[in-house]
């Protein structure tokens, strides 16, 4: 019983880490650019393929492949901002939704053509290493997911809270017009935000690709959950996204472990609907009332 519980907690932390890394980019892009990026799951998917290529084909060490995939996707994120988001920024909301949805479909189908629709396995040097304690065995890969996520969250937190770039990002999120009056270059901040968001999604893809499988459709499956995470955390709220990612990850894995894995997706959307009814601003919605 205890072993089962610990096992599910570990699984929950792995899921929560994945959701966190994807959700952070999604919520930051929404907060700063005001765009709901439906193609964010595809950035996660492309990140996984980039990591798979670097690690399996080029035989680079896993950590190097992880960093490489993050850099490649950061560039993709910047291209996406420049070619799609920036022209859409002044457009009506419907145009933005159609635009990013179009990119999502385009990227997924491009991946199907390039990599075939069949799932690929992504073995790494950590897949067959186990850490045993209290009678359970955990692969190093799972520990790595959680550990690297914590490191990335810490780095992001430092960036947002203490650096000049982070302060400018928060300013753009809280009041874009006033940010411009301070002399902040909103285009540059948007570009950096998309680069960071895409790199974090790529990290998620590379980290969990070896645990599950890598396929062109993986983004589609992840994004529904991640939207639940972002809404639960309060749209645009970075800290809220982190907490709700772990809440959902743990709820899902504990449901799967103690009831049935048939219910694990139901619990996520059950929580989401309950939150939307009783606390539509999200569990961690901003409570500071802006005075006019």
């Amino acid at each position, binding site marked *: 019983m205890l072993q089962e519980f610990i096992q599910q907690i570990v699984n929950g932390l792995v899921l929560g880490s994945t959701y966190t890394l994807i959700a952070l980019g999604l919520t930051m892009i929404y907060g700063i650019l005001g765009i709901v990026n439906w193609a964010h799951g595809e950035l996660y998917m492309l990140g996984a393929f980039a990591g798979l290529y670097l690690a399996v084909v080029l035989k680079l060490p896993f950590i190097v492949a992880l960093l490489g995939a993050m850099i490649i996707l950061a560039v993709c994120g910047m291209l996406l901002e420049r070619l799609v988001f920036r022209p859409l920024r002044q457009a009506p909301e419907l145009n933005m939704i159609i635009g990013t949805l179009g990119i999502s479909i385009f990227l997924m189908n491009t991946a199907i053509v390039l990599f075939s629709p069949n799932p690929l396995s992504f073995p790494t040097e950590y897949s067959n290493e186990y850490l045993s304690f209290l009678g359970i065995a955990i692969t190093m890969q799972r520990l790595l997911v959680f550990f690297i996520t914590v490191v990335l969250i810490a780095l992001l937190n430092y960036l947002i809270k203490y650096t000049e770039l982070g302060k400018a990002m*928060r300013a753009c999120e*809280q*009041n874009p017009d*006033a*940010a*411009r*009056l*301070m002399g902040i270059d909103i285009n540059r901040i948007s570009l950096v935000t998309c680069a960071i968001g895409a790199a974090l999604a790529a990290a998620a893809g590379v980290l969990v690709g070896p645990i599950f499988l890598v396929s062109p459709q993986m983004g589609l499956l992840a994004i529904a959950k991640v939207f639940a995470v972002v809404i639960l955390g309060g749209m645009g709220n970075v800290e809220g996204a982190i907490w709700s990612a772990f809440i959902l990850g743990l709820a899902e894995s504990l449901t799967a472990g103690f009831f049935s894995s048939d219910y694990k997706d139901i619990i996520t959307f059950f929580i989401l609907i309950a939150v939307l009814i009783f606390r539509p601003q999200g569990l961690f919605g901003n409570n500071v009332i802006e*005075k006019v």
Partner: protein
Amino acid sequence: MLKLSNLAVHYGRIKALKGIDMEVAAGEIVTLIGANGAGKTTTLRAISGLVRPAGGTVEFEGRTVTGLDAREIVKSGISHCPEGRQIFPRMTVAENLELGAYTRKDKHNLDAEYQRVFEYFPILAERRRQLAGTLSGGEQQMLAIGRALMAKPKLLLLDEPSLGLAPFLVEKIFEIIRAINRQGVTIMLIEQNAYQALGIAHRGYVLETGSVVLSGPAHELRHNDHVRKAYLGE
């Protein structure tokens, strides 16, 4: 110092400014008065680069700055303290002030500005670690002015700094505006409170539906029949 020639701004099909001419000399306080929708705020937004003019020019210190990015305008020495305070609510008072100096190259040299801002508004020094959104309306206004001063502007654009403040605070804000001006900062002031504004300004412009209908020394405007009827409620 600042010269607007035939400046026009359109929002879609609405002509918010229909080609206005204005001049502000160094060291002056110039006030814009007019009803809601007369084009006062639009004038300031066009100067600071938040809206792109449809026609005409803005010259600052002899250089044409029309249609430049807001960032370039701030760098050239114009700070805009916008209507409704527009502080960053989920950042601390200190962070708000720090962002005011965002374009400054001499970031290690901000002590003088902090000192000056805290001298004008001692309450901000007390609350420097507090989130700006939790300040009272008057304190937020002080923060907005202080933040604009952090850029060390030559020209300060103030949009309705006394809006919604208690009468004793209005007095205080006007006193401080005068003090800022005495320290050599040129000021362009929009005010609902035309009486007070004409009291501290050197000159004024009266805007009506996007055009300048009257201009002159503040004391003359104060005794002008039209101004007295329409804006001073006499």
